[in-house]
């Protein structure tokens, strides 16, 4: 008898069907906001290189409601990006101490500690 294997098409919106796929897609989407925010910083750096007046104009433009809305949105996605990727680090970077594996939670916590210490250091340096 002839074989006639049947191939099922993947639905276009497959990632809406299950929570884990939706979360994955949102995590992937978060990189767009990270990229957009990096562009804003680059534009700021460019203005800084053009002198105090240009930089003041850039800072002024950041006060617009649209810029504030973008920054809030970018912050939410940056946090999501950070938290989800920190959560995945034990898979990519397992640590062994002698014969034992360092627990994944310790690796994740270490990332948070470094994040907080570096952020606090930068904030302090900015005040000096």
């Amino acid at each position, binding site marked *: 008898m002839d074989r006639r*294997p049947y191939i099922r098409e993947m639905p276009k919106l497959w990632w809406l069907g299950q929570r884990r796929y939706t979360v994955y897609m949102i995590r992937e989407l978060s990189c767009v906001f990270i990229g957009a925010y990096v562009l804003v910083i680059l534009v700021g750096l460019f203005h800084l290189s053009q002198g105090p007046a240009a930089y003041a104009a850039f800072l002024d433009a950041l006060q617009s409601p649209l810029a504030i809305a973008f920054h809030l949105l970018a912050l939410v996605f940056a946090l999501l990006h950070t938290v989800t990727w920190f959560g995945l680090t034990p898979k990519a970077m397992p640590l062994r101490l002698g*014969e034992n594996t360092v627990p994944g939670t310790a690796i994740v916590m270490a990332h948070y500690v470094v994040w907080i210490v570096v952020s606090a250091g930068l904030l302090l340096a900015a005040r000096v």
Partner: protein
Amino acid sequence: MSEPVFELEVLRYRPEADEDPVFQAYTVPYNEDWVVLDALNHIKDNIDRTLSFRWSCHMAVCGSCGMMINGEPKLSCHAFLRDYYPDKVRVEPLSNFPIERDLVTVADDFMEKLASVKPYVIAKEDRPVNAGEHLQSPAELKTFKQYTMCINCMLCYAACPQISLAPEFVGPAALALAHRYNLDTRDSGREQRQEIAASNEGVWDCTFVGACSQVCPKSVDPAAAIQQTKIASTVDWYKALLSPWGK
């Protein structure tokens, strides 16, 4: 009082009769100790002997009875009716595989991908039998033991959207096994495996959805194996770039 019953909707595909797969409803006696595979065997023995599905060991070792149960890839011998009762369950063949008949999928593509990563110990040189055992310490075994638990049940392939989106992707189980043999102290075959594992259709087609590790019935972590292979391959690439004359 009537005996409790359990309802299943099973996706049927009879290539000689069906243009497209269709769901067929079955009602079986409800037994608290039954798994979905028991219900399917009850159907086959007592209700409809034309229903086709694969199974062998009934104890989560052989890896034959993987199916989508309510949309989740599971071993049907590992899915208790009591976890669904009184709701009914939908039983479908594993996603991302062509359907041969009813719940039986075509696994040829997986078999080829599995073979392509040479999932066996490749020794540096032939070792005569009288040289004795190739000793390995418990600590050395520990580095890869979880990956040896893979039973090739293909649930990870059914969970991974990349298998459908990028059909050339070698996939979770095969890449986890490549990693397992690369980590084995008796093995010297990493370079041969890297041809496939470090290629685009190898680890770089993985977008780290992570579903493979979530559905594995043997707690293997293919997502971890793949990310670690990505890092090791990147290190290889930089080494080759910085010292093209030396290996």
